[in-house]
């Protein structure tokens, strides 16, 4: 059965692996280009705790920005669609094509049990690509490391989904869900379309849920001082910053009523603010959140596989 599944889907698996490999090579090139640029501009050692050391060559930062910041802004937008695209394109036709070409009449009348057929098809195709995307996520994280200072924290939506382990988890989920839809709808295009729609709902929902999964950190300091490394470590995902009155109520200063010279913190103090408060997800939460989200995706993928098992057992051809 394994050989048959491989022979049926080897084109899909090999081309997926090829796409992932090409992107991986591009990322290796990005890292090499970044480190050599940093060396060439004399910026080695200038990035301390995510901030430029003021003693480093003036203007070098903007040169680095010119070279890499547009690439860094579209890279996560491109990478974020990769797991779902591969997932639905490989998972949608997995069994739907058998129903479309009616070859299930051949496959299911040989001596292979239905449960085994479903499980082997999913495993032979899903596993190699999942492993490839897990690896790719780690490579993305590694490749952007030297350019840390130019791009938002990896806890920010965009990078969070495209670094670490979640890419593999998202692929597995999209793949299993599309395979299940293909089994139920018996239609490749329908499975692909519905799979994409489900993903477009799921990813923003998960991003919105992320701050509520683990406790966020809240700090308070004198107005105008909270957004420094002492209080909010570099790499945090800041959720909220605001002034507070002595009673702890939020203060929204009216900046048109400020005195001269203009200073927002002083202005806020004039209007009753006694402290500035920040709420953020600390960088230490990156890996726990990655593990939780990947685990959730794997669990949902397992549910899809299980529902598929119930469906194939129904014997409606």
């Amino acid at each position, binding site marked *: *059965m*394994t*050989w*048959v599944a491989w*022979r*049926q889907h080897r*084109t899909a698996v090999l081309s997926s692996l090829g796409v992932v490999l090409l992107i991986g090579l591009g990322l290796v090139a990005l890292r090499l280009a970044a480190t050599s640029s940093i060396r060439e501009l004399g910026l080695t050692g200038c990035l301390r705790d995510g901030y430029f050391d003021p003693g480093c060559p003036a203007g070098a930062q903007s040169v680095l920005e010119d070279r890499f910041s547009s690439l860094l802004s579209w890279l996560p937008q491109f990478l974020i669609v990769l797991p779902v695209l591969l997932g639905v394109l490989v998972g949608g036709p997995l069994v739907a094509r058998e129903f479309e*070409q*009616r*070859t*299930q*009449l*051949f*496959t*299911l*009348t*040989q*001596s*292979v*049990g*239905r449960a085994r057929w479903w499980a082997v098809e999913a495993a032979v195709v899903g596993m190699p690509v999942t492993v490839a995307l897990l690896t790719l996520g780690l490579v993305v994280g590694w490749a952007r490391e030297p350019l840390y200072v130019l791009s938002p924290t990896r806890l920010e939506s965009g990078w969070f989904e495209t670094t670490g382990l979640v890419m593999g988890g998202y692929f597995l989920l999209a793949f299993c869900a599309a395979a299940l839809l293909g089994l139920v709808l018996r239609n490749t295009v329908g499975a692909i379309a519905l799979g994409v729609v489900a993903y477009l709902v799921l990813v923003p929902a998960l991003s919105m849920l992320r701050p509520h999964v683990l406790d966020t950190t809240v700090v308070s300091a004198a107005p105008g001082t909270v957004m420094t490394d002492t209080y909010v470590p570099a790499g945090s995902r800041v959720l909220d910053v605001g002034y507070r009155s002595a009673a702890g109520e939020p203060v929204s200063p009216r900046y048109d009523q400020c005195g001269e010279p203009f200073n927002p913190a002083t202005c806020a103090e004039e209007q009753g603010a006694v402290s500035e408060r920040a709420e953020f997800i600390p960088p230490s939460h990156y890996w726990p959140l990655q593990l939780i989200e990947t685990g959730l995706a794997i669990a949902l993928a397992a549910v899809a596989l299980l529902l598929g098992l119930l469906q194939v*057992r*129904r*014997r*409606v*051809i």
Partner: protein
Amino acid sequence: MSHAEEPAFEAVGLGRRYRRGWALRNCSLRLPVGRVAALVGPNGAGKSTLLHLAVGLLAPTEGTIRVLGDEVRARAHPRVAFLSQDKPLYRRFTVADMLSAGAALNERWDAPYAARLVDDAGLPSRARVGTLSGGQRSRLALALALGRRPELLLLDEPLADLDPLARRDVMATLMAEVAETGMTVLLSSHVLTDITETCDHLVVLGGGRVQVAGGIDDLVGGHRVLIGPAHQLGTHVPAEVVVEARTTSRQATVLVDDPGLAPGPDWVKHDAQLEDLVLAHLRRGQLPDTEQVPA
């Protein structure tokens, strides 16, 4: 192994309902071991449904179905092979790949035998399935079914959409293997003439029910055509033996299932033709239940 008394195929009160209604209902059928049976009926009679139920592709809505003495399950019986109507095979596989697939998907697989059947059919082993002609694809599908060394072979319209030459090839291969192995065959067709030469058993399906079933010789021998005066029909021919009666103002032509019946000197008795007999039973099967008892 199943012994001689156990039927190769047995359905009792079998029914299958789809969303649009019953495709098969109240179907009871026994097929003894070693028969080559034709399953005939018009399109939509439930032939494919019956075969799909026999091979476990469908679960019955009611009743039971047994093949080679075992209840049919979701997993195909290892000694039952099935050839589906459109002979679906993996289009991008080569002929050699399909043989490997047969070996990989079956515990019981006679690789040299399947390879010989493919060779005999003159199929190039490196040709892709998608490039084969209809006749070649049928030969390949048949080789894959026979490679499982079945004791019961179920074929759904094996000759539909084949040209006459390909029909002859497929039928000749099939019958040579049947003669050699003694396997039981149930093959469906909506064209009676395809199969009467090769089959010794007939099952007529109409309106989702078995209309008539039995050995072809018994069926032909068990029916007679009577021709006589129309006005004597009601009095001289008992209504319960009439399969079909056609009358003009003077003459009645009646198909009866009692060969010994002799209505009187005004009546002439002929042997029944198989085709007439099947058509008569099919026409009777299409009538609504209330009218099914001949008047």
